[in-house]
C-alpha cells in the first residue's frame, strides 16, 4: 500500500502528512495486520478442537442418527415448512391487532383526571393479569375451555382461540412498552403543543405518540420476535391446525427420531435471527428517533 504524500480535501485545503504522522500510520497498519492474524488463527483452532471433541464423544453416532438424520430430514422438510407458513400468517394477523389494541390501552392508561378512573383501572388490571399469566395456560383456557362451553355464537375453532390468547397476552406487554414510550416524551413537548391551543387528544396524536412510537420501535420489534416463536405454542391445541412444531411432533412420534424438531428449530431460527439483527440495526439507528429529544 503506497502512502499518500499529498492530498487535497474537498474544501481545497492542501495537506502533506508530516513524517511523524506517516510513522504513526505505518505502526497502526502493522498492529492491525497482527490482530487480524491472531484472531483468525485462534478461531480456526477453537473450531477444530470443539469439532474434534464432539465427534469423538461417546454416543456421537447415536446422536447423529436420531437428531441429524439428513435423509429423513429431507423427507419431512416440506411438511414442516408448510406448517411454518401457518405460524407466519398467525404472527402477522396477531401483530396487527396487537399494535392497535396496545396503543389504545396505553392511551387509556395515560388519561388524566378522576373521570377516567374506571378506564385507567380496567386497563391497569388487564395488563397486570395478562402479563402475569403463563401464555400456555391462557391458550389452554381459551383453546380448550371456551369451545367446551358450546355457546352457539362463539367460534368453536381452536385456532381462533389460540390467536385470541396470543393477542391478549402480547397486547398487555406491548401496551406497557408503548406507555413507557408515551411517558418518555418530555413534558415540555406537551406544554409546547398545548400552548399552541392543541387539545389533549390532538397533542397526543400529533406530538406525543409519533415521538413515542419511534422511540419504542426496538422494544416492539423485540416483542415481535418473541411473538413469532410463541406462535409455536398453538401446537399445544392439537389438530387439525398443523403448525411447524405440531407437524414435527407428529413425525417424531411415529419414528422416535428427533430430526424433525431440529428442522423446525432451524426454520424458526431462520426467521427470528434476521428479525433480531434488524431490531439491533434499528436500535443503533436511534439517532433519527431521539435527535432533538433533549427538550
Amino acid at each position: 500500500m503506497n502512502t499518500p504524500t499529498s492530498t487535497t480535501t474537498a474544501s481545497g485545503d492542501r495537506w502533506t502528512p508530516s513524517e511523524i504522522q506517516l510513522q504513526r500510520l505505518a505502526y497502526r497498519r502493522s498492529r492491525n495486520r497482527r490482530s487480524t492474524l491472531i484472531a483468525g488463527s485462534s478461531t480456526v483452532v477453537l473450531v477444530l478442537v470443539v469439532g474434534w471433541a464432539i465427534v469423538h464423544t461417546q454416543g456421537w453416532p447415536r446422536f447423529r442418527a436420531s437428531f441429524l438424520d439428513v435423509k429423513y430430514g429431507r423427507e419431512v422438510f416440506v411438511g414442516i415448512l408448510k406448517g411454518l407458513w401457518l405460524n407466519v400468517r398467525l404472527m402477522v394477523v396477531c401483530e396487527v391487532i396487537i399494535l392497535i389494541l396496545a396503543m389504545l390501552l396505553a392511551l387509556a392508561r395515560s388519561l388524566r383526571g378522576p373521570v377516567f378512573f374506571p378506564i385507567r383501572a380496567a386497563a391497569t388490571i388487564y395488563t397486570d393479569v395478562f402479563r402475569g399469566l403463563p401464555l400456555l395456560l391462557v391458550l389452554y383456557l381459551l383453546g380448550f375451555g371456551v369451545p367446551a362451553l358450546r355457546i352457539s355464537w362463539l367460534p368453536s375453532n381452536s385456532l381462533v382461540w389460540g390467536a385470541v390468547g396470543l393477542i391478549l397476552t402480547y397486547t398487555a406487554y406491548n401496551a406497557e412498552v408503548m406507555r413507557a414510550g408515551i411517558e418518555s416524551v418530555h413534558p415540555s413537548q406537551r406544554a409546547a403543543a398545548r400552548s399552541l391551543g392543541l387539545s389533549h387528544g390532538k397533542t397526543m396524536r400529533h406530538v406525543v405518540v409519533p415521538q413515542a412510537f419511534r422511540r419504542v420501535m426496538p422494544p416492539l420489534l423485540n416483542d415481535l420476535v418473541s411473538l413469532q416463536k410463541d406462535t409455536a405454542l398453538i401446537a399445544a391445541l392439537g389438530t387439525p391446525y398443523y403448525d411447524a412444531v405440531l407437524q414435527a411432533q407428529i413425525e417424531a412420534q411415529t419414528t422416535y427420531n428427533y430430526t424433525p424438531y431440529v428442522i423446525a428449530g432451524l426454520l424458526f431460527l431462520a426467521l427470528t435471527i434476521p428479525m433480531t439483527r434488524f431490531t439491533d440495526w434499528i436500535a443503533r439507528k436511534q439517532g433519527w428517533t431521539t435527535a432533538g429529544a433533549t427538550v
Partner: protein
Amino acid sequence: MTDLRKPVAGEPGWRRPDLGPPATDLLEIEHLRKCYGEQVILSDLSLTVPQHRCVVLIGASGSGKSTLLRCLNLLETVDDGVIRLDGVDITDPRVRADRIRTQVGIVFQSFNLFPHMNVLDNVTLASRVVHQIPRPQAEASAMEMLERVGLADKARARPDNLSGGQQQRAAIARALVNRPVLMLFDEVTSALDPELVGEVLGLLTELKAEGMTMLVATHEMGFARQVADQVVFLADGGVAEAGPPEQVLADPVDPRTQRFLRRIIDAGRL
C-alpha cells in the same frame, strides 16, 4: 372578547399603526397566588400590561418569572387571584383554555420545537390542527412568517439541524402564526450561545416596534434598558419594584432590586 383569530395570508394580524397614548390594559393580573405543594412561588402578584407595550420581567432565578408566564398561558392553574385578558377573566374554570391559548403565544427557553417535524410543519401545526386551515393556505402564511424571521430557506430542515438561534426564531414564528394578541417570552436567549443572542433579541425589538404586546422574562439587561416600556422586578413572590427602565435599572428604590443589580454589575452583565 375578540374572536379566535384565524391566520390568513396577508397583513400580519398584530401590526397596528396606533402607537399613541397608552391604550387600555390588555392584561391585568390581580393578587395572583401560585404554589407547588407547600412551596409558595407567587404569593400576591399584581401587574398590568397595556396594549402595544413591552413589559420586561427581571428577578433572580426562582423568583417566579417562568411560573407567572406559564400561569398566563394557562399551562398552570392558579391558586388564587384573577388574570384578565382583554377584560375577560381567563382564570375562570369555565373558560375554554385551548381557545385562550391561541390568543396568548409563549416562547420557551429551550425552544421546545417538535423534533419529528420539519420547521414548516412545526409552524403550520396549529393552523392545520386547531384552526382546520387547508395545508396549502397554512403553508403560505407560515412561509410568510418564516420569511419574517429570516428562516424561509430552512423551512424543510429538521429542528436538530438548526443552530440555537435559528431554532428559537422558528419557535417564535410558530407562536406568531396563531395571530396572538399577547406574546410571552420566557428567557428566550438563556439557552443560546452569546453570538446568537443578538438575532433573537433583534427579532423581539422588531415585534415591539410593530406594536405587539409583550411580556418578556429575561436576564439581558441591555435589552431591558433599550426596549422595555416598563421593567418589573420580581422578588419574594410579588412585584418588588416596577417603573421605566431608566429608573428601575439605574436608580432602584427597593433594596432587593439594588442587591440584584449590584450582583449583575459585578458579574459584568450590565
